[in-house]
């Protein structure tokens, strides 16, 4: 059984404690969200899980066959065109160039890019298009585990829904497991099986929320309803320092 297991994770930058005693398990086919205010150590946690930072204390065990990472910014290579950017992960895996190009073109079309965009460099793309390309690059490798670092936060509402719909389709087919980081509660409720609330200074988990309804059955009414409920929660109010009047 593939899973990601985090046990007793602590992390420091210099003398500043960033994360304290984080433990959780992400099973295959599950979507786990970590929500919390900005600057609360969420990205650090994700970097540790994705092996982009060295673990200092505690353990991260990742038995997923493959993983990929979608960043908050697009992080495209400015000297490569759209298709070559998408193909990057495939080539790194050892796919043949022609196969990689073909797969990349296929997914690019699925993600709403036009054939005339294929040869363009990132400088000629709009912000939303860049994010599509970045998302396609992360998903074209068919990862069994996907790390998402607020990839929707800079997008307009239409594009956000579009990309989420693609993700939800993959989730409901149990093709993918997701570790998702966000400060947007509604987004988390729409996508996750489980939400961990990360409180800042230092980052530690204060509460867990479970959502059992399958993602493709969750309509706007469900998401709004659950969001309203969660916003009444004392821990949420405290963590996000919401002043409800």
């Amino acid at each position, binding site marked *: 059984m593939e899973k990601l297991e985090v046990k007793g994770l602590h992390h420091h930058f210099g003398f500043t404690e960033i994360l304290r005693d984080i433990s959780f398990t992400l099973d295959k086919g599950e979507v786990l969200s970590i929500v919390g205010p900005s600057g609360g150590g969420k990205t650090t946690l994700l970097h540790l899980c*994705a092996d*982009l930072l060295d673990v200092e204390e505690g353990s991260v065990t990742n038995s997923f066959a493959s993983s*990929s*990472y979608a*960043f908050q*910014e697009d*992080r495209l*290579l*400015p*000297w*490569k065109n759209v298709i070559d950017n998408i193909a*990057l*992960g495939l*080539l*790194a*895996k050892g796919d043949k160039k022609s196969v990689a190009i073909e797969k990349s073109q296929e997914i690019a079309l699925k993600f709403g890019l036009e054939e005339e965009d294929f040869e363009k*460099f*990132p*400088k000629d793309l709009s912000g939303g298009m860049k994010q599509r390309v970045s998302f396609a690059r992360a998903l074209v*490798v068919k990862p069994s585990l996907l*790390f998402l670092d607020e990839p929707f936060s800079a997008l307009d509402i239409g594009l956000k829904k579009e990309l989420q719909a693609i993700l939800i389709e993959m989730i409901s087919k149990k093709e993918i497991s997701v570790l998702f980081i966000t400060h947007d509660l509604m987004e988390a409720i729409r996508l996750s099986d489980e939400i961990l609330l990360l409180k800042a200074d230092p980052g530690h988990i204060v509460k867990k929320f479970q959502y059992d309804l399958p993602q493709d059955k969750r309509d706007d009414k469900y998401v709004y309803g659950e969001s309203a409920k969660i916003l009444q929660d004392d821990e949420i109010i405290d963590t996000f320092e919401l002043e409800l009047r």
Partner: protein
Amino acid sequence: MNSLLKILKDFPAYLWSGWGAIASILLFIAFWDAGNQIYGDLVLPSPLETFKTLMSMLQDESVITEIKVTLYRASMGFGISLLFGSALGLIAGFFATASMMSRPIVTILVGMPPIAWIVLAMIWFGMGDETVIFTVVVASFPIIFVGALQGTRTLDGDLKEMADSFGLPWHMKFFDVYFPHIFSYVFPAWVSGLGMAWKIVIMAELLATSDGMGASLAVARSQLDTPTALALVVIMIGSLMFIEYIILEPIKREVELWRS
């Protein structure tokens, strides 16, 4: 390979875009001719006379030999700078201490006037190839070094992280992530280093040798042979323009296509 083909394919269109440049050169020659009519042949020979002298010089075996000598010195000096400047600059860029320590040295190298280097080199190496080559190296090395240093210093940490997250093997990391970025800094530095080398070689030859184009220029000066002096200048400028606009610019356009 593909980019080479693309450079060749785009070349005619690039040449066609050169009409404006040609017009401005012709305008310059017109002003030159006006200057000739005002000041007379001794001070400023007419373009026609200059080009006639140029043609007869180019048919003269000994002039060609002088040009070859100069070319040899310039390319030796520039080649050494290119090799060591790029290599050392890249290495220095990877280490914070090395780049910090190299800065004042670069300032000294850049700040010291080439003419002072020539005097020192004449004392150290005497009158000959070494003096000229040394001066060329000293003048063009820091330009290339700084370019390469900047290239590695400014590598994007975010893109490195992205490359790590996809598990790019080292050769892909180098060719797809680091190299294009570094090259976009190093290549312009090569171009300006080359321009510098070509100017310095003439100056060093004029002062420190008895052969080469610089020395020919010195002879022309002592004989008040203005047409020959101007013809030599035309050769220098012409060759620099050829290298810059016909060879380097098309390459630059291709490799910097992705830049906004």
